[in-house]
């Protein structure tokens, strides 16, 4: 069974299946709900409202003349895409056990289709909230290519991570339950609700290496730069700008490495999925 050699060609041949699965995800997700597709736009806005009340009124994150809602939203959309993708992919293989035991198809299409359908939601949410960014942070068309590039890297990274979680969950079912906790901790280790300069504080400094080792920090920073600009504690917050080279390099490195490892690991484990699900 020369599964490995034909993989890439097979995957390309599965593109129609992938497209149908993505379409299915998008159609099924909001079937029967009154707002339907609008939920992918409404949810982040409502969450933004909650976090803005808490972190701009109760706790007061210092942001100078900056706007907490747009700062939060620019990082939260990235986080939400990543978190939703991986969390739905964890059970993708185990949950489709009946199909996997009965039909042969490229198993990757299951997590990949979930990531791609989340990517559609992400893109739509970004479009729908763009007036907020235009109003509070100004019009900066020069960062649009950076957003597209960052989007591609983010999808690559998320795909790799989703494959790792989906495959690992087959042999280690406890992962599905653990994921929620992992992602809660991961969320707080990512500068979404706090700007990174808060880590300059001598006490918080201890956690700086952990936050910097977290790949999501870099992806969130990339979108912070291109959508919000540079958050500073007081005075004028500089407007959106092209992310710096270090951010690009780290993001690209994480994206390629995670996708590569995820793909190889997934395919190595995929041959025995039918036996273990």
């Amino acid at each position, binding site marked *: 069974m020369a599964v490995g050699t*034909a993989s890439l060609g097979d995957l390309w*041949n599965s*593109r*129609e299946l992938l497209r149908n699965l993505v379409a299915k995800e998008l*159609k099924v997700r909001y079937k029967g709900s009154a707002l339907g597709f609008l939920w992918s736009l409404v949810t982040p806005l409502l969450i933004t409202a909650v976090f803005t009340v808490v972190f701009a009124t109760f706790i007061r994150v210092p942001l100078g003349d900056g706007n907490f809602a747009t700062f939060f939203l620019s990082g939260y959309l990235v986080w939400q895409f990543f978190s939703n993708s991986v969390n739905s992919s964890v059970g993708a293989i185990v949950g489709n056990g009946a199909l996997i035991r009965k039909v042969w198809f490229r198993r990757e299409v299951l997590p990949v289709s979930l990531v791609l359908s989340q990517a559609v939601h992400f893109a739509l949410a970004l479009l729908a909230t763009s007036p907020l960014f235009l109003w509070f942070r100004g019009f900066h068309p020069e960062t649009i290519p950076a957003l597209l590039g960052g989007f591609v890297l983010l999808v690559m990274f998320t795909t790799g991570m989703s494959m790792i979680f989906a495959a690992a969950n087959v042999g280690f079912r406890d992962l599905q339950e653990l994921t929620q906790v992992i992602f809660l901790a991961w969320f707080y280790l990512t500068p979404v609700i706090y700007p990174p300069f808060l880590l300059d504080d001598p006490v918080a400094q201890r956690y700086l290496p952990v936050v910097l080792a977290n790949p999501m920090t870099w992806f969130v920073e990339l979108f912070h730069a291109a959508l919000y600009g540079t958050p500073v504690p007081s005075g004028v917050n500089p407007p959106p700008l092209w992310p710096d080279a270090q951010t690009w390099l780290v993001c690209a490195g994480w994206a390629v490495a995670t*996708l590569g490892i995820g793909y190889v690991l997934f395919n190595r484990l995929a041959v025995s999925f039918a036996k273990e699900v």
Partner: protein
Amino acid sequence: MGATAQDPRAAGEGTGRRLRAHDAPAVAGPAATSPFSIVVADLTERFRVSSDRPPTLKERLSQFRRAEYTTFEALKGVSLQVRHGESVALIGHNGSGKSTLLKCIAGILPADEGSVSVDGRIATLLELGAGFQPDLSGRENVYLNGSILGLRRREIDAAFDSIVDFAGVRDFIDNPVRNYSSGMYVRLGFAIAVHVQPDVLLVDEVLSVGDANFQEQSLARMRSFGQAGKTVVLVSHDLNAVRALCERTVVLDHGAIVADGPTDESIAYYTYLVSGGQPDASEPVEEPTPTRTGDRGATVVDARLLVDGRRPATGEPIASGASAQLAVSFSTADERLLPAGGLTVGIVVRRPDMQLAVYETRTSWRGIYLAPPRPGAVATVTFTLDLAILSGEYLVDLLVANASTNAIHDRWLGALEFRVDSPVHEFGVARLDASIGITNPDGWWPPELHAPPEERGGPREHPLREERPSPGYEPGVPRAELLDPSGSEPGLPPMQLRDPVRPA
């Protein structure tokens, strides 16, 4: 955004390597290089069965206790070669490894040892409608399921009408599959699977689903695959289907091939095996027919037989020749039947002791089609029957079906039971209502006995009696007197009948 989907473009469509169901369908027939379509060599397949309770997290951490497994070999070094265009059946008792072998050929299970190679595009019919999304419409599911099975969009476009017609779900194709009956679900799944146009078709026990009509249809479809020179591998317990479709049959037992040869010989060996090694064993016992089948799109809610406007008590006999009303009431569970064609209601009156269907009719045979009643409403069809049937126990079977798609909604065997008592001394089934006239110059015998009166089963007034009388005897009257040459007609003596003899 689809970075993973773009990279492989460089790898090309991969011509020249082994093709799978998901590869380009550009294979014009089986490759001529090898005479074999499927080659399985020394295939061993192992499954891990956890032998004990799984270790808790605490045990895992504190004692390094790993989950313990025993290995179970589902296949033990199986080798099999199937030629292009051959139809092969795999049979064996449950757990013999036949389905595992099929899944290995399909590529679903990896070979633990040995190898499997398949030449040509594979389609698997392991489970019909696997991967159907209940919330999507039939149309969307055809495309989704088709692409899971490896069909291209343009191939599905081309086959779409044929798929829908084969499944008989045209009226529902835009309704969510959630609302389909199980029969429609399975038919649609089968229709998609057989339209994959494979070189190698792998089938596992899917022919036993659906109603008789659909089984007939799918069997014919399978046969046409074989005739078209496709390789077919069939796993089945249905030995009749195996006989009908395959010339060669492989018998598996405990993960090994124990017989491989002409179907008749293999089946004989198999029946010998399942009977515990006793020769002359009969075939496996067929499952008893369920008394109530159908997809329950419409359900009979009440059926009653009325004689003279009232329901006979249990066991109370109905007089032969009585006029009876058979009222069949049914209702539909939900809206899904509304767009379907007309419904037909049928009845069969049976004599189970004779294994005889006495009478069958359907509304559709009289040109009467019923609009499906709205959910909650009850439709009643009343058949007025002339029970010109003779003494015996009768059963009534009821049927509610769709007259256009032939989908059976409710078939209820033996829904009603009634007894007929015929006062006339007749045997058999139908009341042909014989009139008896005799022409015998010597009259009737013996003259001493009198027939019982008509109400006790005696002869009725004979219409020809006056016109063609037969002279007879009067007790104690000399024959010569009776046959009075003067021509005066003596009164006819009553007809003689022996006491009625009833069937045991």
